[in-house]
């Protein structure tokens, strides 16, 4: 599969030179909204090779980070009080609810690799299985086929969100000063490029649709700088996986299985039309188990500036809790440190932006 790896150091160097050539004198802020992009950026030391005046910030793209605390409480409640097996992706393990952590050491909590494994478990054991469904459109595309098959003793505790409304929200907000977007390539395989064209046009926001290999990212940044300098539009640099209309089959399945609702993003608040809720009540764990609809009561501690960081307005280095060590991956206080791809967690692990 070598031909699908785009890590050639020659081209990487040439992209770096092109990026330096195209970078204007003033400060440029590029935002991405994908935990996996953040992962790639750090793994390949991308920020280190960019000019100093380009800041590449992570917006609300880490699904663990933006999951409201009460969803974790709901999951824990189901595991403890109802006779269910609570299944989850590994990413959510160790995340704290308001009082306790989601932990695989708990008797009826199981980590699974795929929602299909959770359904298989329900079929094989006959037990009631609930899946804590976090993620964005990419992962919704895995939930939809499962829900449409109407499994018997299975339900989804949904925490599914949509990225384009969040991007709009950020662009409408004052003070975010985003010069360009790096759109999430795998969300785009599902949604297609067109939602981003709409947004780019309405908000005058240059956007590139980027893949995840280092050359995908460097090439995308180079392209983005060109369109920031000339005109705002959308360039698809991940054509091998993303086309204009996206994955129509997946979109159809998602439309059938979910309805669009407002959703709450931890650290931000409610973003209109940014959530996906399970249509079939029997398959919606909240309805199936009569979970009380509660409002998010959890408040981040006073000094926590995650809400600024998640909007790209501040950097982890500006946070008093980060700097004092009170907030760390072992003892995460706010959402940016909770997810392993959260900006603060990654900053902590990899030593900051370009500090090598």
């Amino acid at each position: 599969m070598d031909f699908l790896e785009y890590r050639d150091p020659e081209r990487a160097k040439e992209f770096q030179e092109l990026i330096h050539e195209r970078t204007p004198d003033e400060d440029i802020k590029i935002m991405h909204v994908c935990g996996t992009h953040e992962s790639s950026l750090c793994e390949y030391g991308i920020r280190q090779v960019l000019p100093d005046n380009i800041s590449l910030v992570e917006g609300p793209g880490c699904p663990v980070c933006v999951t409201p605390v009460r969803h974790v409480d709901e999951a824990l409640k189901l595991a403890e009080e109802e006779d269910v097996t609570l299944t989850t992706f590994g990413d959510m393990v160790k995340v704290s609810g308001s009082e306790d952590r989601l932990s695989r050491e708990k008797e009826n909590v199981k980590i699974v690799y795929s929602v299909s494994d959770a359904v298989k478990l329900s079929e094989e054991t006959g037990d009631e299985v609930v899946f804590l469904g976090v993620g964005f459109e990419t992962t919704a595309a895995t939930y939809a086929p499962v829900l449409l098959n109407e499994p018997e003793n299975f339900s989804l505790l949904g925490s599914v969100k949509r990225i384009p409304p969040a991007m709009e929200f950020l662009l409408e907000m004052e003070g975010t000063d985003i010069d360009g977007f790096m759109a999430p390539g795998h969300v785009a395989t599902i949604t297609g490029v067109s939602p981003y064209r709409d947004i780019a046009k309405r908000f005058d926001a240059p956007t590139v649709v980027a893949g995840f290999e280092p050359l995908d990212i460097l090439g995308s940044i180079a392209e983005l700088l060109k369109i920031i300098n000339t005109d705002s539009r959308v360039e698809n640099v991940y054509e091998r996986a993303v086309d204009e209309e996206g994955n129509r089959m997946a979109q159809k399945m998602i439309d059938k299985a979910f309805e669009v609702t407002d959703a709450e993003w931890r650290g931000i608040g409610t973003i209109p039309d940014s959530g996906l809720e399970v249509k079939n009540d029997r398959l919606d764990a909240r309805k199936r188990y009569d979970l009380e609809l509660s409002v998010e009561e959890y408040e981040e501690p006073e000094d926590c500036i995650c809400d600024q960081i998640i909007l790209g307005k501040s950097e982890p280095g500006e946070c008093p809790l980060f700097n004092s060590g009170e907030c760390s991956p072992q003892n995460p206080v706010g959402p940016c440190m909770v997810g392993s791809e959260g900006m603060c967690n990654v900053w902590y692990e990899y030593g900051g932006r370009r500090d090598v």
Partner: protein
Amino acid sequence: MSDDEVSLEAGAGGLEMLKLLKESVFPSIDLGEISPKIGVREMDDGAVIDLEGSEKYLVFTTDSHLVKPRFFSGGDLGKLAVSGTINDLAVMGAEPAALSSAMVLEKGFPRDDLERISESMGELAESAGVPIVTGDTKVVGEGDVDGVMVNTSGVGICEELTPASGLNPGDKIIVSGNVGNHGMSIVADREGFDFDIESDVAPIHRLVGELKGVGGITAMKDPTRGGLAASLNEMASASGVDLEVEKGDIPIDSKVEGAGEMLGIDPLKIANEGKVVLGVESSCAQEALDALRDEERGKNSRIIGKCTEDGEGRVILNTEIGSSRILKTPRRKPIPRIC
């Protein structure tokens, strides 16, 4: 979890464990005056004790094993226990002499499993030439231990020490083969994947023995929990040097890479049970490499980096695309992720 109680996290070997030990254990057992040459404080793979009237040292190590699944692709708890202790002695520079094996069994533990584990231990001890000479057995009530816990301790004699703290600027870093196999095979078995990846569990004392003829070996570790990343960091900070490592030079099986990319698990940060990572004086590096490669268990050895200068123990990873980043000790257990 209150600070009054030992947390599960403290068993994971990271900062929490260190805190637990420094606060509740070391103050009492680390007795300055009768401290050995290398002891509890150094937290190396083994302890080193001067032998009066001799220029040789006694090396002593101990480990408790609870791995689950107990039987995994390429090995089992018994093999792991014997191999692990032999390797800890070997990487300190010792010739392993003998092992002990203490078992705590839960009432109801299957006799078959016990026999399988014992057979594995015996077979490996014999083929490695390191006998199990003493032991202990206890049986406790249901729930008082999870199935079985095996502790193996070992002693060996050493002429030239190769502690983790021995690195000097200019030394080259060598790893004796492909990394991540054991960790990935355990994840696969635990999560129910059929990946056809085998643990590399094996004793490497004879492999290390080949290096004695070369000379210039300054430091060694076996990269078990936390993988290559943890060992490099431990060696760097114990030695007070910074390291620079080339990602492209680190040998990794394509399957392990594939599994890692699929699950979001880094092969550099998961355990190996049949590998050595070592520091060697630059002038001896090629010879050391050749000596390792001559052996079956070292055939994929590579020079992966060097010690750059005195420092705080930073490990810098040069990526495939020519940039650099920091490689830190992993803090999490390897769990499949989607993000």
